């Protein structure tokens, strides 16, 4: 008889730190090609690369963002994660995003790649004791006090909501005869900010519009949790109006994060 495991809430750990996750998704992807022979027979399915695991998690921010989630930073190191009895050694962060809307709690979405083996048979339910004794966080990032400042965008009016995303590609490099990479690098680091406002000023030019923005995430008690900066170019403007609604303008600001080479 098979069991369906039930979770009241999800204990998610980065390293040795607990986070309050609302959902966790785990996946694995293999890439294979059929090998067909000149007599028409099928030889086998050949692997094209390693199994690439995916992990995405939505969690509430209860403090400052841990360093390993600074996607656009220099740190390439992996982190161990565990949830529901399953441990994944060495996950590599590749994107982080959140949305801020008035009076709404802010949920951080993070995505990771992982390689190697995971013991899925270790999945188990939380014990009643753990559930009953679980500590409830006092501070959760919330749109109530969080805000955004725009110091350089000409003509932007009242920002009613915004979405933030930072991401990078994580190419994996393998030594021969190995299926776990010796290095998972970072490249193409970008951060994006989408804002909704009542007005965006003049239409953008062929160069876009220069934009410097600062996001401050706070909890409901006005405690600052973290700061995010997007200093890039506004490349997209949209204006929408529908019957019975206000006109809403939306724009996307994109920043490419460079890395200056260190002379060696």
């Amino acid at each position, binding site marked *: 008889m098979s069991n369906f495991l039930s979770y009241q809430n999800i204990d998610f750990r980065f390293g040795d730190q607990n986070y309050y996750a609302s959902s966790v998704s785990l996946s694995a992807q293999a890439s294979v090609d059929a090998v067909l022979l*000149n007599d028409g027979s099928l030889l086998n399915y050949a692997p094209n690369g390693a199994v690439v695991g995916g992990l995405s998690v939505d969690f509430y921010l209860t403090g400052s963002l841990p360093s390993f989630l600074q996607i656009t930073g220099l740190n390439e190191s992996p982190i161990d994660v565990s949830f529901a009895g399953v441990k994944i050694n060495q996950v590599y962060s590749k994107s982080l995003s959140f949305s801020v809307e008035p009076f709404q709690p802010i949920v951080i979405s993070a995505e990771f790649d992982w390689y190697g083996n995971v013991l899925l048979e270790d999945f188990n339910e939380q014990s009643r004791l753990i559930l009953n004794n679980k500590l409830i966080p006092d501070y959760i990032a919330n749109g109530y006090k969080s805000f955004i400042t725009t110091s350089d965008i000409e003509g932007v009016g009242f920002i009613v909501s915004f979405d933030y995303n930072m991401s990078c590609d994580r190419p994996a490099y393998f030594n021969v005869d190995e299926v776990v990479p010796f290095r998972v690098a970072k490249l193409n680091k970008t951060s994006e900010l989408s804002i909704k406002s009542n007005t965006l000023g003049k239409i953008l030019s062929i160069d876009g519009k220069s934009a410097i923005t600062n996001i401050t995430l706070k909890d409901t008690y006005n405690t600052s949790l973290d700061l995010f900066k997007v200093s890039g170019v506004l490349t997209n403007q949209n204006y929408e109006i529908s019957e019975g609604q206000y006109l809403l303008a939306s724009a996307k600001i994109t920043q490419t994060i460079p890395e*200056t080479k260190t002379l060696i």
Partner: protein
Amino acid sequence: MSSIISGLNIKNIFEYNPLLSYDKFDIIDYQLITGISVYPNYTGFGNTGLCSWFNNDYLEDFATDGNFNITGWTNKVINSGNLLQFSLDDNVRPNVVFNEPYITLKNLEFLSGTGFEHTKRTIFIAANTSSPNKPNIDKQKIIKFGPLDSPNGSLQVAGTNGNLQARLILDNTSFFAVSPIYDETNIFTLIQDAGTSLKVRQNGLEVGQINSPNAQWNSSYFEIGNNPGNNGINYYDLFYFSGILSETQIDYYEKYLFEKYFPESDGLFFAKKDVPVGEQYSPIFFTGKDYWTKNINDLFNFNYGSSANFTANLSPLKMGDGYKTNIVNTINTLNATFNLVYDGLTDAQAKCLIAFFENTPESPNKSIYEGFKGVTTNLFNPYKSNAELYFKKANFNSSYNNINKITIEAESLYDSSLDYKGMHVVLDEIKIKTYTETVDSLTTHDVFYYPSTSFIDRGYYFYTGINRNSTNATGPVTGPASGPFNKILIGPSESPTGTNSFFTKDFYFKGDLEYDINENVRLFSTEMKNSTIEYSKDGINYNILEFSVSFNRRTNQEARAILKFLDDKAGFKIFSYTLPQPYNKTISVYCPEWNHTYNFINNNDISVKFIEFKNPANPEALFNTQIKLT
């Protein structure tokens, strides 16, 4: 800046400084000391007090008998004593070692002389001691003062060749050596201060001191060699000064010996882990060998995408009618080049690898008759782990900050297809084994070498049955049918030469579903002026095929078998191949070219070029001699 550093296109490489720490992949130019080197007879310092100097620069440095046994080693310092051997016994007379910069004194051989009396000396010796026959017992004398076996004043080496095991012995006092004492050249420096102290340095680092050396250190009698039962000591250079030289002067003379006799230890070294501060971490010392390397296998591994290309160097002799014979131009017919991929490198790693690549011509010569040594390379699957490659070209590609890819094209020159074990896919007794009747398991495409006195039967066989181990050895008769205990017993009828064999010597591999075959009819043409070209067939074999076959995405096991088959055929041997639909005919071919790319585990691309050969695959005349290279 040394000539080595100035010859590189890489900046910020410096001579080794023991006062600095280094990071993994850092590069140093090791020169023993950063100062100058000075010849022993250099007089720029004033009267140096050089009393004796023996080396091997010229044959005239030796007095010999008619058999080139050495009767005397001439002191280069005029009017100073020579080292002699008066005995007519060949057992005690060493031989001149032509073409080498040393003389070897083995077993009972020795040279001795008088007139070496001094109370204060600074002695320099460059010598290479062979491993002792009894490491726990034998002590090998490097030098000895005084005519008696005991007491005397002596420097000896003893122990095994490891850290905290190898020892230097002054008289009867033992000190741990800082560098290997056997099978490597060492500089021993002795600083003798009358009867009050005697210090010994090994390769520039002080190892120990005794305060009451034996009185025989002041003796006139000096002897080298005489180590019964041992393979000998190679003496490169030996000189001493009366009096005690300054530390700086000692450094200069030690560097002279280092530059002359340490080609393996000179030049660039690469940090294989973070290196602490300290002279003991110099590359030539025991502790330093854990941190510094010249071996690329200690630093980098290949990445997927590495490939190999093989081309046979043949001169076809055409006989007409499409018949020909392939003249093999050299003893190593097959040229192998490897494209070695190093991807995902950090800038520091890329700098290290580029410096390694650019520095490969600085490797010592293989011998006085040959060019520099290639790079000992642990090749990727299924190739050998000790190939000697010459790094010829490198492509550096940087796709993003701190992400680099370097592809090195390397050529193999000294691996021979004459070796029955194979040229690059070798009989290693691990993945490819000599055939035995009892095996642990059988996997499709296993390769065995079948030894036999019969040329026809001898050679490499490929297992074509299903996978077998002791638990399924009694299944359907598509593999060996029985096996005792945890082994499989292959009966005579199922052996490679048996009547129900599941082994073959034929090319049984099937190419990819998609293939091309281009045909060119061989024709003579006669073209007369202002007339139509006239064609006529070129003899009786005018449809000779030359085509490629691809074996893409094959498992490592099958790739090894295919590549072993081709390696064994050495680019010119004839074998049978059955053409695919709609041809379906079995023809004789040889394979002068093939290439292999290792894409991923169990994903290998192999492309081969087959040329039809209008002769039977099995030769009628046999060269039935097996040559084993040992």
